């Protein structure tokens, strides 16, 4: 009997040798005459265990990891195709403590299914949400999303149902559903993992959205830095067309929905929704003034849903299991689950999907195991390059939208970047301004000029020129940018700077060197 061997094809897994492992297993299998089939699944998100190899045994899946190509002959010798004992044996993946406590809803199939196979998707519960949606009216579907409490997972946390309702209510011959897959925040990779590991969930979510509001065309705006995800999406979209889940007659409903991927071109600002729409239209990604809202006048001037990957990918679960079931997870106004990404200097980095309600400390130490370097954690940055730095004194904060905002931080897209005590917070503050200067679209002055001046002021502080006065100037500059910028880039780039000044002021002092 042919044994199925799973070796992730996820970009992160391949970055630490998964392709070499897959090749070695295939070759060694051939050499030994073993009947095996290598499936390139997504990553389950335990990156410290990648490459994580799984064997489908009659008793279920058995995991080994982290596997290097050099380990492969030894694994065969230990009869790993039958789940044999080996120092890298981890047992059933669901039994690994890191996964056991997770509540995987949106990511329930990531790392499990073959991301290129519609059949495998359907076998694992895929398209049940669409089937349910097709038995409902558009406004019932929108109501279900509202009831679920789902909020935009891209960072703005706007209630998804309200956005959809606005688009539904527009009278227009042409409407669009667009997916913002411009996941540019450092420390975030949940969109990438989902698109590579279970792209049909995103396609299904977009299809449900389109049919609910009456849109016939969808676009996934994907960043150019994600070539692996690009390939996975193109493969999946072609397969969905082939199986008539996309096209003129979606799942036999008689309704049309067409979907394509458009590539960005290395501009962080295009993750801002109006800038993304400009870019989709083939223009410079400059931010639009709102109103009008994209839901009323969006892509090519038509009513448009703009949602993040994880938001749209949560839709099939909500439709399949019911809005109340989703809303039963979470706390306060943060309903459902959040895929949190533990990144940077952390021992066990990766993706943790749990209902809202965990504290930072639980995430950093129970899941993350502390810093990778073994040194004390000095700061974490939450929510990407525009997010605040949080000191250990705040680690008991609960990770939800409101609780983090109460301590001056933002959840954003759910990325947490960990720094140990060797971090120089004045340098990180300088980087925040520098990044804003590189990525500013240039349309408004506080962002375009303020960021460059911010770098200069910090340089003067580090050089010991008028330290106190320049720190004060930096504080005023931050305030001006926050108040006066057109969008979140210039308006939030000061957050990491302000938080560094607040909690790590001792770092803003003259340096003798470098």
């Amino acid at each position, binding site marked *: 009997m042919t044994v199925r061997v799973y070796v992730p094809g996820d*970009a*992160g897994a*391949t*970055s*630490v040798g998964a392709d070499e492992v897959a090749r070695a297993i295939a070759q060694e299998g051939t050499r030994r005459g073993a009947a095996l089939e290598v499936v390139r699944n997504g990553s389950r998100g335990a*990156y*410290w265990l*990648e490459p994580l190899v799984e064997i489908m045994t009659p008793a279920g899946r058995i995991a080994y990891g982290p596997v290097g190509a050099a380990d492969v002959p030894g694994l065969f010798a230990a009869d790993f195709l039958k789940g044999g004992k080996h120092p890298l044996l981890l047992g059933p993946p669901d039994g690994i403590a890191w996964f056991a406590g997770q509540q995987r809803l949106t990511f329930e199939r990531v790392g499990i299914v073959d991301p290129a196979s519609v059949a495998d998707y359907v076998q694992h519960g895929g398209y049940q949400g669409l089937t349910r949606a097709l038995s409902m009216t558009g406004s019932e579907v929108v109501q279900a999303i509202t009831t679920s409490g789902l909020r935009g997972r891209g960072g703005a946390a706007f209630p998804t149902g309200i956005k959809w309702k606005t688009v539904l209510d527009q009278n227009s011959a042409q409407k669009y559903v667009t997916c913002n897959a411009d*996941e*540019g*925040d*450092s*420390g*975030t*990779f949940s*969109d*990438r993992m989902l698109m590579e590991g279970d792209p049909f969930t995103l396609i299904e979510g977009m299809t449900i959205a389109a049919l609910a509001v009456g849109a016939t065309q969808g676009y996934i705006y994907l960043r*150019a*830095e*994600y*070539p*692996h995800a690009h390939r996975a999406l193109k493969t999946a979209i072609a397969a969905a067309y082939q199986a008539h889940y996309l096209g003129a007659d979606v799942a036999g409903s008689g309704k049309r929905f067409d979907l394509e991927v*458009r*590539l*960005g*071109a*290395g*501009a*962080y600002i295009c993750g801002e929704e109006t800038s993304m729409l400009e*870019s989709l*239209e*083939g*223009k*410079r*990604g*400059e931010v639009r003034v709102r109103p009008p809202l994209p839901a009323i006048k969006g892509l*090519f001037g038509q009513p448009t849903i703009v949602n993040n990957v994880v938001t749209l990918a949560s839709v099939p679960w909500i439709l399949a299991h019911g809005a109340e079931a989703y809303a039963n997870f979470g706390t306060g106004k943060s309903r459902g689950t959040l895929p949190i*990404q*533990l*990144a*940077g*200097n*952390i021992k066990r*980095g*990766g*993706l943790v999907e749990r209902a809202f309600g965990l504290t930072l400390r639980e995430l950093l130490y129970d899941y993350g195991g502390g810093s*990778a370097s073994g040194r004390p954690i000095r700061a974490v940055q939450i929510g990407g*390059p525009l997010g605040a730095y949080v000191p250990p004194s705040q680690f008991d904060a609960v990770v939800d939208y409101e609780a983090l905002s109460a301590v001056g931080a933002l959840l954003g897209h759910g*990325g947490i*970047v*960990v*720094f*140990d005590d060797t*971090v120089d917070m004045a340098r*990180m503050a300088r*980087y925040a301004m520098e*990044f804003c200067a*590189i*990525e500013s*679209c240039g349309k408004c002055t506080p962002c375009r000029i303020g960021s460059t001046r911010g770098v200069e002021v910090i340089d003067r502080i580090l050089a010991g020129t008028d330290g106190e006065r320049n720190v004060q100037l930096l504080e005023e500059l931050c305030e001006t940018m926050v108040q006066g910028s057109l969008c979140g880039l210039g308006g939030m780039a000061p957050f990491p700077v302000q938080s560094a000044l607040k909690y790590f002021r001792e770092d803003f002092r003259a340096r003798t060197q470098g």
Partner: protein
Amino acid sequence: MQTMNPGDTATVRRIVSELKGRPGPLLEVLHAVQAALGYIPAAAVPLVADGLNLSRAEVHGVVTFYHYFRHSAPGAHTVSLCQAEACQSKGAVALADHARARLGVDFHGTTPDGRFTLEPIYCLGNCACSPAVMIDGRLHGRVTAERFDALIDEQAKRP
């Protein structure tokens, strides 16, 4: 202005005529030109503008807005080092210093032998395996100075 050879001119014209019927086609066209020629030659701008019924200024404005579009031919291999926060927390700044010294060029530079172009990049989505490096579209994680050298040595053997 520099001129393009007849082959490249024909390539640009073919790309424009293939894609011009699509909604908002300019970025698609520029991606296709860069995929075919390795960069966006200045001489391609008027051809694209003409084909899409846009002004040269509009096309130039888009080409220069996006970091991904190049204005000159890159080296045989493009080495992109992530310089964003998660990679910085695992030594990306020191790795960049090492890469500059090893290749003898600064960011955005190409080695004199035309083998390598070194670029900074801001997040490759590999933040749990920092620091990350991408070489010709292939992602590498947990890259140390030694591993960087090994990757460069490996590339140097290729055409």
